[in-house]
Structure formats: structure tokens, C-alpha cells
């Protein structure tokens, strides 16, 4: 791997994001929009609810942590379809740039954008709803990291599918988060899902991270075994996703999809 080529991808991806108003919207508008909607809803619930649970904090914690997954699952894929749409893949991969270098560069920019998004959300949540970042405590670090990795894994799978099947499967870039959210138990405990859904949810690393977020915020601490399980699943999915993407890249070279004009 060459750092210079990774740097080139960082530069390209960053400049490209700054020039596109919709990419800037992605950083600020949608996270803020989510925060407004869920913040208002949970404020309303907390006024009517009789339990002593801080619903606002639980929901906002869920929204903020979910943003890690949501953004991670989309950003790298969007960078890739940008290249495909602008027919720039040929220019990039006719140079010594490798797929690994490309991904690292794009992932670094995606991480920076994610951090900006999250920082903005924390400020907004504090200003609008008095949400304290400390309410997540140190748990924020493993949860954020785990959810980002899981988002990236699914993103790599989607990218692999685009390389194999073309633009018809692009919709999954946006659909992944929508499909994963109900099963990840972002706003409710695992036990509230029907039995069949629970058995699927147990295979998602995100489920354990949200379960533990609620446990943590209610002062019951963290179930280390579940976090280890979540990370184990994450590692497994990441390895499969990377393998699948590299295989798909080679398949796209065989089918001609890599150089196809979209």
C-alpha cells in the first residue's frame, strides 16, 4: 500500500464532497432532521409517560448512535457510485491505485465526515433537548466503533453487488439502514420483537450495542460478553464483506462492468 496514493484518494474524496451541496446536506441536514423528529417525539412521550425512565435521553442516544451506522453504511457506497456515474473508475484503476488503497482513502474521508456529523448532532441535542454526551459515558467509544464497522461491512457488500449486478441494486445503499433499523432494536429492547425477528436480530452486532446502550444509560452497566459477541460478529462480517468486495471487483473485471458506461 502506498500512502501517497491513499492521500490522493483522500484529497479527491474530500474535495468532491465539499463541491457537492447534497453531500454537505448529508453531513448536516439529515442528522439534524432525525434529531428534530425523534427529539420532539420523545419529549412528547416523556410528558405523557408515567415511568421514571428518561425517554428523551434513550431515544436521542439511539438516534445519535444509529447515525454512526447509517452514515457508515452509505458514505463509501455513495463515493463509489459517484465514480461510476462520472465514468472515472477507468482513470483511477488504470493507475497503480489498488482497490485497498481506494477503500482506505474513501473510508478516512467518510470517517471525518461522520465525526463532523456526530459533533454537530451532539451540539444540537445539547442545545435543543439538554442531552449530555456524558450520558453515554465511555460506552460511546465501543458502540460508535462497532456500529461504524458494521455499517462499513454492509456498505462493502452493497458495493460488491453494484459491481456484479450494476445500478439496479443501487437502491440498497439507502435501503440497508432502513432494513436493519427495526431489527437492531435502536429504540426498543430485543424482547419487544416477535420471536422470529429476535432470532434474526441476534445475528446483528448492532442489536447488542443498542441493548447495552439502554442498559448503560439506565445505570445497569455493560454486559461485556455481549459486547465481545457483537465484535466477534462484526469481525466475521467485515472479513466476509472485504472478501466479497474483492471477489466482486475481479468479477467486474471479467464481465466488463468496471469499464461499462453508465
Amino acid at each position, binding site marked *: 500500500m502506498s500512502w*501517497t496514493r491513499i492521500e490522493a484518494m483522500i484529497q479527491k474524496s474530500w474535495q468532491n464532497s465539499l463541491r457537492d451541496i447534497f453531500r454537505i446536506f448529508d453531513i448536516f441536514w439529515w442528522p439534524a432532521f432525525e434529531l428534530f423528529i425523534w427529539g420532539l417525539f420523545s419529549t412528547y412521550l416523556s410528558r405523557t409517560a408515567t415511568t421514571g425512565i428518561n425517554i428523551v435521553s434513550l431515544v436521542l442516544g439511539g438516534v445519535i448512535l444509529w447515525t454512526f451506522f447509517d452514515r457508515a453504511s452509505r458514505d463509501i457506497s455513495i463515493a463509489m457510485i459517484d465514480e461510476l456515474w462520472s465514468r472515472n473508475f477507468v482513470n483511477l484503476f488504470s493507475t497503480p491505485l489498488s482497490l485497498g488503497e481506494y477503500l482506505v482513502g474513501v473510508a478516512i474521508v467518510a470517517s471525518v465526515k461522520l465525526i463532523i456529523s456526530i459533533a454537530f448532532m451532539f451540539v444540537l441535542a445539547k442545545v435543543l433537548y439538554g442531552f449530555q454526551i456524558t450520558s453515554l459515558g465511555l460506552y460511546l467509544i465501543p458502540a460508535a466503533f462497532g456500529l461504524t464497522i458494521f455499517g462499513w461491512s454492509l456498505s462493502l457488500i452493497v458495493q460488491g453487488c453494484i459491481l456484479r449486478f450494476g445500478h439496479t441494486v443501487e437502491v440498497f445503499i439507502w435501503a440497508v439502514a432502513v432494513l436493519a433499523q427495526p431489527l437492531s432494536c435502536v429504540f426498543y429492547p430485543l424482547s419487544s420483537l416477535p420471536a422470529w425477528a429476535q432470532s434474526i436480530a441476534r445475528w446483528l452486532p448492532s442489536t447488542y450495542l443498542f441493548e447495552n446502550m439502554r442498559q448503560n444509560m439506565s445505570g445497569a452497566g455493560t454486559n461485556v460478553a455481549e459486547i465481545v459477541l457483537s465484535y466477534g460478529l462484526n469481525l466475521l462480517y467485515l472479513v466476509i464483506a472485504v472478501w466479497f468486495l474483492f471477489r466482486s471487483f475481479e468479477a467486474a473485471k471479467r464481465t466488463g462492468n468496471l469499464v461499462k458506461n453508465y
Partner: protein
Amino acid sequence: MGKTILEVQDLTKRFGTLTAVDHISFSVKEGEIVGLLGPNGAGKTTTIFMLLNLITPTAGVITLFGWNYTQNREAILQWLNYSSTYVEMAPRLTVLENLLIIAKLYQVHNAHERIKEYADKFGVNDFLNEKHEDLSQGQKTRVYLCKAFLNDPKLLLLDEPTASLDPDVADLVRKEIMEARKKGMTILLTSHNMAEVEKVCDRVLFINHGRIVAEDTPEKLAQKTRLARVNLMMRDGQKRTMVFARNAGFAVSAEGRYVTVSIDERDIAYLLAGLAEQGVEYDEISIDKPTLEDYFIKMTHRGGTR
């Protein structure tokens, strides 16, 4: 000529039931300029993409600089570059930003100086700070050429290098190609401009239906057609000329006082003797020798069999 830079053996590419490239073999020596000619869909671009490792061959071997892609992808691509009017750069980035990124991907150390050098050569300076999406096709082509020379490639693949360029800029590009050859650069190019190919290429590979159907110097290929054009500016006997030519089985056309007869070079004497017998008079006569374009048309029309 020097050592072999590129060697292709039995290269084949199939997409499902379609055979885009069918067992082609050729080699290119250091410092050579080789033209890859053929009609649309002949397999030229697929071949170039295989040479760039962007399409994996179904069968066959590509050896570049003595290496293959399985073990030396990075080193091979470091010595290669490519320009085509059919790909794009990042649309929202400026020309300079795009070129700087490409320079970084090739790890060019003095990127700014190199970009300036080629921007001067190809007249790109005026729009270095324009966004790529705002450029005309001709401007984009010039940018791609700048990009193609940035890393001082040992082998340059040019897909239609002068397409959509004004004649003066196209001429400048041809000069630059010849200049690059003097410095030892090897070039493989595709073009629909036959005059250009005749001018710059040492050798031509004619490809049709995925196969190399002819390989020779442009002059020798052109001679293979033997189809010359006899142009006459008539003074008297235009009708007799047309009738005589048609009866003799020659293709003939007329426009005003001018009559053109397309004819095998060996039949010119017969035509002129026949016209003299008919008492035909003409003020001017010129004979266009067969060109590469004639060969191209002939081969394309008859399906490209050798």
C-alpha cells in the same frame, strides 16, 4: 527498434456468447508507434482495457515490460498511461485538482512543474482552474493528453487522441506524439483518422470481429487495396466517359465537369487508352493513390477477412 515492450499471445475475451477479442497475438517494440485500427465494435477498446488490466482476458497472455499482471500490477501500471475521449475525470473538481490527483496516483514528485509543462504544450493553461464538467469535449481531450504524459510512461495507450480537437490542436498533438517517440516512448493508438495513422504510425494492426486481419506499415496496407481514383476535368465527351467506365465495370461518379473513376491501379492504362479511343478530351487529370482509408473501407465492407 529496441526490445519488446508489449507482447500479446492468443488474447481472447468472451462476454457470454459474444467473442469481443478472438485469439489475437502481436508485439510492440520499444519506441514504436503502432496503430490499432478497425470499425466500431471490432474489439479495439476491449483490447486496450485488457492491456490496462481493467478487463480480465478469458484466455491468453499479456506481457508488459517482461512482466505479467498477476505478479507485477503496480510496477506495470506505473510505466503505463492511457488517454481516451470516452472516459471522464471527477466532474466537480477543477482541471488542476484532477491532474494533481492523477500525478499523486503515479507518485510524480514534481507534479506542479510537470502539469505546467504539459498544460503549456497542450494549451490547457487557460482552463486549469475550470471545473471538469464545464469544459468542452475538445478541452477535455487536451486535459486527458496532459494526464497521459504526466508520469513519463514507457508505454502510452491512446484511444482516439485527436477526436474532437480543432485541426491546429490535433496537429500539435501529433507533433507531441512524434516528439515522445524520439524520447523512446512506445505508443499504441486507436484512431478513426486514417491520415493521422498514416502520418504517425510505424505499423498498423487492423482488427475486425475481434481478430487481427492485417498487420503491416500503413503504406503497405494502403497498397494492398490497389484502388486508385482517377479524377478528370472534362472538356468534351463526359457522357462517353461515363458509359465507357460503366461498361468496363468501374465505379464512376460525376459532379459538374468533374468525373471520378475508382479503379484498380493496374487498369489505369486501359482506362486512359479507352478514353483516347473514344475521342474524349479533358483539361486536367489527377490520380489519387490508394490510402489507408481505402483499405479500411475495403476491409470493413468485406468483413475483414485476410
